[in-house]
């Protein structure tokens, strides 16, 4: 039941903010649409309903969002800006192990890696990501993980695993 409520709520919020109005007509159609869409899609979107009952996961996600968008992104951008001017690059593809189990955690790690400039996930196989990296400081998977995705993974495991 919880999954239908949560998915419906997301649809409701997106619908109302996109329509940009809180008139009775918008709210009435939003209720119908969120009911229909969550009935159709919730079973594909939510695998483990119990995790939705743990609100601290959401708090960690919000904290991570702000930390990622400000500090982590800023550092990564500054690094790439510096490398653009100095052309001090050593590009290559490294193998990075992932321990997170759930697909949402993995997607968050992948998105975080790709969205920071300088690193792009190009493939995923078994328990490894293949990351195209602007400056390969070490080809060793564990060393590379420390430099690329360890922080992301710690957060992702707390939020989704």
């Amino acid at each position, binding site marked *: 039941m919880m999954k239908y409520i949560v998915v419906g709520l997301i*649809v409701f919020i997106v619908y109302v903010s996109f*329509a940009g*109005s809180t008139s*009775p007509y918008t709210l009435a159609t939003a209720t119908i649409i969120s009911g229909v*869409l969550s009935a159709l899609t919730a079973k594909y979107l939510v695998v483990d309903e119990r995790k939705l009952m743990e609100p601290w996961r959401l708090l960690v996600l919000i904290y991570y969002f702000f930390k990622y968008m400000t500090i982590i992104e800023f550092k990564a951008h500054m690094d790439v800006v510096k490398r653009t*001017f100095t052309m001090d690059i050593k590009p290559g593809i490294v193998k990075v192990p992932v321990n997170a189990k759930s*697909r949402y955690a*993995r997607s968050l790690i992948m*998105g975080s890696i790709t969205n920071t400039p300088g690193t792009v996930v190009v493939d995923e196989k078994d328990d490894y990501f293949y990351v195209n990296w602007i400056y390969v400081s070490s080809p060793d998977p564990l060393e590379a993980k420390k430099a690329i995705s360890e922080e992301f993974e710690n957060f992702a495991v707390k939020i989704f695993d």
Partner: protein
Amino acid sequence: MSRRIIILILLFTATLIASFTATIILNPATPSELKGLAKYYVLNTINETASPEAVTAIVWDYRGLDTIYETLVLYLAIVGGLAMFKMSEEALLKTRIGLTLLSKTSTKIVALLIASIAAAIVFHGHLSPGGGFPGGSAVAVASMIIIPVFAAGTLIEKGVSSTKLVAIRGAALTALGLVALLPVVKGLEIVTNQRFYPASILGLPISGSLSLYNLFESLAVASGFTAIALYLSIPEEAHKGGSGA
């Protein structure tokens, strides 16, 4: 290194100067007065069609008959397109792998967001810019990212078949035609709006037939484009091998 920086700064300055000069010299003056026809629509749309959105009112009311024939033309085009693909869904069932688990996860979320926004476009089409065709196309975008990511075979297994999609499209178009024809029963012209359909239901503004047209048009467009996308994802070998029906 220093030459690189100088070139970058020069380029940046040149772009800034160019865009400022272009804005000042080419400044397209906004007309201070509306032309007669535009004035007519601005002043009368809300009274004659019960819709504040003049574009939708023109498309489905003032020139409603034209739009309905246009929809029919698109319907025939899609039927023609589908008829050109000689295939059975067995060929599609072989394609089941799709992209990585990560792409699938993100696509699920994105598709849900696209669907929510598409619904907002459709259901506010008679109140703000939007409507049946843009909303239906947005749904089609969602299905066009779902099909390659999850592979057509997986969707067919889940019960999404092109036969069903074409059936939805046919039903939506029939409903659209009925909305246009119903006023004739009461002796009014075809595609009559305000003299036959109510402007609001339970106090909610629906602008008469405009919201109905938008709803059915969006269903027709979404299912039609999804069916085409499904057919386009047939692997090439299926065509060559002649394994089609």
